[in-house]
C-alpha cells in the first residue's frame, strides 16, 4: 500500500466535505446552535447537593495544661503565710480547730464551670480564734482563686462561699496571721479539646469524608495533589487560645476549582466547628479561610467552563465525523475513493482537517458563550488551543476508526453512552477524580478528556505553561496516533 501523501488530494476531500456541510443547511444550523444551547444549559446546571467531599483533616489541639484547682493550689503554696496540707474530703476536717485553721474544698467542676461561664462555688471552712485572722484567711483564698481564674481565662468566675467558726475565749495571739490549710482539690480540670470534639462531629457528618493528615503541610499537599477538595488544620494551642479568649487558630483550605464540592465542604466545616465550640464552650467562633487555589466567588462556569470546551469538542468531533464517515461508507462513495488514487491516509487527513475546522468553529462558539458568563477566563482560553486541537484530532480519527467497524447510525450512536457520557462524569470535569469509589479509580485514565481536564486545570488555575502539562499533551498525542493507526489499518478488507 502506498502511503505517499498528496496535499492536493487531501484538499479535494476537505473542500468537498465543506461543500456538503454548507449544502445541508439544517445540519449546518444545528451544528451552530447545538453547542451554544448545550453550553448555556451547562452554565445553569449542577446546583445539587454534594456528599462525601474528601477533606484533609489535621487536629493537633492539646487539652488545657492545668486545672483551676491546681493553679489555686500552687498560688496558695507560694504564699509563705499558708501551709498547705493536701487532704481527701474524708479526713479534711479531722484537725480543724486544732492544728488546721481552714479547709478549702475545690469542687470537681471548678475548671469546667469557669470555662462554660458558669459561676462555680468553692467552699471554705475556717475555725480560728480571732475575726482578724478569719478575714485574712478568707481574703487570701479569695485572692488565690480569682487570680487563678484571671490567669487562666482572663476573667473572674468564682464565688467564694465561706463558713467561719470562732473558738472563744482564746485571745488573739500577736500579729502572726499564718495558717494551716487543709486543701481538698477535686477539680478534674478540662481534659477535652475542642479539636477532638470537632473531629468527632466531622466524622459523623456525611457531607465529608475525612483524610487524616499528620501536619499542616500534608493537608496543603493533599489539596495540591487533588486528593482532597477541602482541608482543615487545628494547631496545638487551639483549645487553650479559645479558652483564654485569645484569637484561636484554625485554618480552612479550599480547592476553589472544585467549587461545588468546595462550597459544600466549607459549609460543613464551618457548621461542624461552630457545633464543636457550642458543645465545648457554649459559644461559636470565626475561622480563617485560605484559598489554596481558585479564589472566592468563582462560579461553576468559571471552574467548569474550560473543561467543558474539551467535553463539547470530544462530543461534536466524535459524533459528526463519525456519522459523516459512516454515510460515506454506506452510500458507496468510500469504496469509490478507495479505488481512486486517494490513499487511506489522505482520506483520514482530509477528514481530520475538515472536521478540525468544524470543531474550531464550534469551540469558538462555545468559548464565546463561556466568556460571556465568565470573562475572567479570557486570557487562558487561547492557551488551551493546542490541547483542543489534539483532542479534536484524536476524536475525529477515532470516530473514523469506529465508523469503519459499525454497520449503521444506530450503532455509532451507541458510542454516546459508551464513550462520551462516561467522559463527562469520569474525567474530573464535574467532580474530582478523588471522589470516585476505588473500583472506578483507574477508569478515568482511559479517557482522553481526563488528560485534557488535567492539563486545562493546571493552565487556567495554576498558571502552568504548556511545558508543565507535557505529560497530558503526550497522552493526547498518543490518542491521536492511535486513532490514525486504527482508522488507516482498516482500509484493505481481509
Amino acid at each position, binding site marked *: *500500500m*502506498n502511503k*505517499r501523501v*498528496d496535499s*492536493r*488530494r487531501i484538499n*479535494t476531500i476537505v473542500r*468537498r466535505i465543506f*461543500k*456538503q456541510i454548507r*449544502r*445541508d443547511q439544517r445540519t449546518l444550523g444545528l451544528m451552530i446552535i447545538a453547542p451554544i444551547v448545550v453550553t448555556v444549559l451547562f452554565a445553569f446546571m449542577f446546583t445539587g447537593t454534594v456528599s462525601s467531599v474528601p477533606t484533609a483533616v489535621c487536629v493537633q489541639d492539646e487539652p488545657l495544661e492545668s486545672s483551676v484547682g491546681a493553679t489555686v493550689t500552687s498560688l496558695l503554696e507560694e504564699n509563705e503565710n499558708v501551709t498547705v496540707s493536701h487532704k481527701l474530703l474524708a479526713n479534711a476536717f479531722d484537725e480543724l480547730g486544732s492544728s488546721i485553721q481552714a479547709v478549702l474544698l475545690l469542687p470537681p467542676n471548678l475548671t469546667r464551670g469557669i470555662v462554660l461561664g458558669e459561676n462555680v462555688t468553692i467552699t471554705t471552712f475556717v475555725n480560728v480564734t480571732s475575726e482578724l485572722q478569719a478575714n485574712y484567711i478568707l481574703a487570701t483564698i479569695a485572692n488565690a482563686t480569682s487570680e487563678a481564674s484571671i490567669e487562666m481565662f482572663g476573667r473572674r468566675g468564682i464565688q467564694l462561699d465561706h463558713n467561719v467558726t470562732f473558738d472563744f475565749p482564746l485571745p488573739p495571739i500577736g500579729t502572726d496571721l499564718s495558717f494551716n490549710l487543709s486543701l481538698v482539690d477535686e477539680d478534674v480540670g478540662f481534659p477535652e479539646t475542642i479539636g477532638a470534639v470537632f473531629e468527632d462531629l466531622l466524622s459523623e457528618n456525611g457531607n465529608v469524608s475525612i483524610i487524616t493528615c499528620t501536619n499542616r503541610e500534608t493537608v496543603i499537599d493533599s489539596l495540591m495533589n487533588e486528593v482532597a477538595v477541602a482541608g482543615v488544620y487545628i494547631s496545638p494551642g487551639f483549645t487553650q487560645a479559645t479558652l483564654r479568649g485569645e484569637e484561636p487558630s484554625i485554618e480552612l483550605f479550599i480547592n476553589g476549582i472544585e467549587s461545588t464540592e468546595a462550597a459544600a465542604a466549607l459549609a460543613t466545616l464551618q457548621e461542624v466547628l461552630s457545633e464543636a465550640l457550642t458543645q465545648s464552650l457554649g459559644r461559636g467562633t470565626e475561622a480563617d479561610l485560605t484559598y489554596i487555589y481558585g479564589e472566592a466567588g468563582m462560579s461553576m462556569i468559571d471552574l467548569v467552563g474550560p473543561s467543558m470546551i474539551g467535553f463539547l469538542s470530544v462530543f461534536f468531533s466524535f459524533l459528526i465525523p463519525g456519522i459523516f464517515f459512516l454515510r460515506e461508507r454506506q*452510500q*458507496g*462513495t468510500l*469504496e*469509490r*475513493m*478507495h*479505488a*481512486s*488514487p*486517494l*490513499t487511506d491516509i489522505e482520506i483520514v487527513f482530509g477528514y481530520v482537517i475538515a472536521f478540525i475546522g468544524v470543531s474550531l468553529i464550534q469551540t469558538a462558539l462555545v468559548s464565546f458563550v463561556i466568556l460571556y458568563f465568565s470573562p475572567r477566563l479570557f486570557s487562558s482560553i487561547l492557551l488551551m488551543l493546542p490541547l483542543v486541537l489534539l483532542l479534536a484530532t484524536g476524536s475525529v480519527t477515532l470516530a473514523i476508526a469506529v465508523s469503519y467497524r459499525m454497520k449503521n447510525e444506530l450503532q455509532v450512536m451507541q458510542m454516546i453512552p459508551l464513550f462520551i457520557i462516561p467522559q463527562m462524569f469520569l474525567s474530573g470535569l464535574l467532580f474530582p477524580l478523588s471522589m470516585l469509589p476505588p473500583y472506578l479509580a483507574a477508569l478515568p485514565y482511559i479517557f482522553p478528556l481526563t488528560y485534557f481536564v488535567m492539563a486545562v486545570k493546571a493552565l487556567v488555575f495554576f498558571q502552568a505553561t504548556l511545558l508543565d502539562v507535557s505529560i497530558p499533551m503526550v497522552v493526547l498525542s498518543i490518542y491521536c496516533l492511535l486513532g490514525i493507526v486504527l482508522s488507516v489499518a482498516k482500509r*484493505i*478488507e*481481509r
Partner: protein
Amino acid sequence: MIRVEDVYKEFGEVIAVDHVTLEVPKGTILGMIGPNGAGKTTLVRMMVGILLPTSGTCFVEEKPSYLLTPEERSHMGYMTQQKALYPDLTARENLEFFAQSYGINDPRVQEELIAHAAKLTQIVDSLNRPVEVLSGGTIQRLSLACAIVHNPDIIFLDEPTVGVSPELRVEFWDYFHKLSREGKTIIMTTHYLDEASRCDAIAMIFQGKILAHGTPEEIISSLPLESTISGIIEPDESLQLTNVLRSIAPTEVKGKRFTVTAASDDDLLKTFETIVTSKIAVSNIVVRQAGLEEAFTHLVRRSQQ
C-alpha cells in the same frame, strides 16, 4: 492486461470466489455473468484492489492490484454497483470531486472532461441539480460518468446498465466498443445475457466458480446444446414429416404445429435441408438456435450434478 491467478476468497464460512483464474487482454471487453450472489462483485473488488483475496492474486499490468500506487490507480475507473454519489452535491460537483481525486486539477481540462462525460451519458441538463432530486436513470448515468470522467485505461463496471432505458443501453454499448477500439480494457458484470453477448469475452460465474470463459460463440459451440425448428403443416402430412426426419431428430406434432429438436448444428442444418427437399408444404418456419441462456442453464445444471 489483467490477470486473475487462482483467486480464492471466503467470508467466514461462505466461499465467495472459488479458485478463479482469468485473463483480460488489453483493449477487450470482459463480461462477467451470473446470478446475484455468484461472486461477481467480490471478484471485481479484488481486481480493483480494495479487497484482499484469501489466496491467489489479481494482477493489473503484472502488479498485484492491492499494491498499485496512486499514479497507477489514476488510470483505472470503477463504477460500483451502489450509486456511490454525494446526494447533497450537484451532479457537476460530484464529477469535479472524482475528477480531482484522480488527479485532474487543471480547471480547463477538468471542465472539458466533465463536459465530455456528461454529453456521453446524457446528463448535461442535470449537471447543476443536486443528485438527490435526480431520477434513478439519471443517477445511474451520472455514476457511470463519475467512473470514466478521468478517461481511464482500465474500466471496471459493476452492473452499469441496471435501470437504464433500452435506447440508452445501446448508446452505452456503442461507447464501450469505441473505448475498446481505443485500446481500453473494460471489465463489467451484468446479469443481462443479451448484453454479455456483446462482449469480446465472457466469464460465466456461478457459486464463485467460473463455469465457462471465452467468446460467446466459443462457449455456445463447445456445449451440446439443442436447437429447434418449428412450423405449421397440414395435419394429413404430419406422419410423412415424422417419417422423413426419423433418422435425424425427434419430431413432435401438436395439431398443425410441429417442433423438431436438433442436438447439434449439423443436425439442425440436416433437418432444415430435409424439410425443404421433402416438398412437404410447411409454413411459418422458425429456427431457434441455442444461445447464452441455454448455455448458462446447461452449465449450471452440469455443475450441480
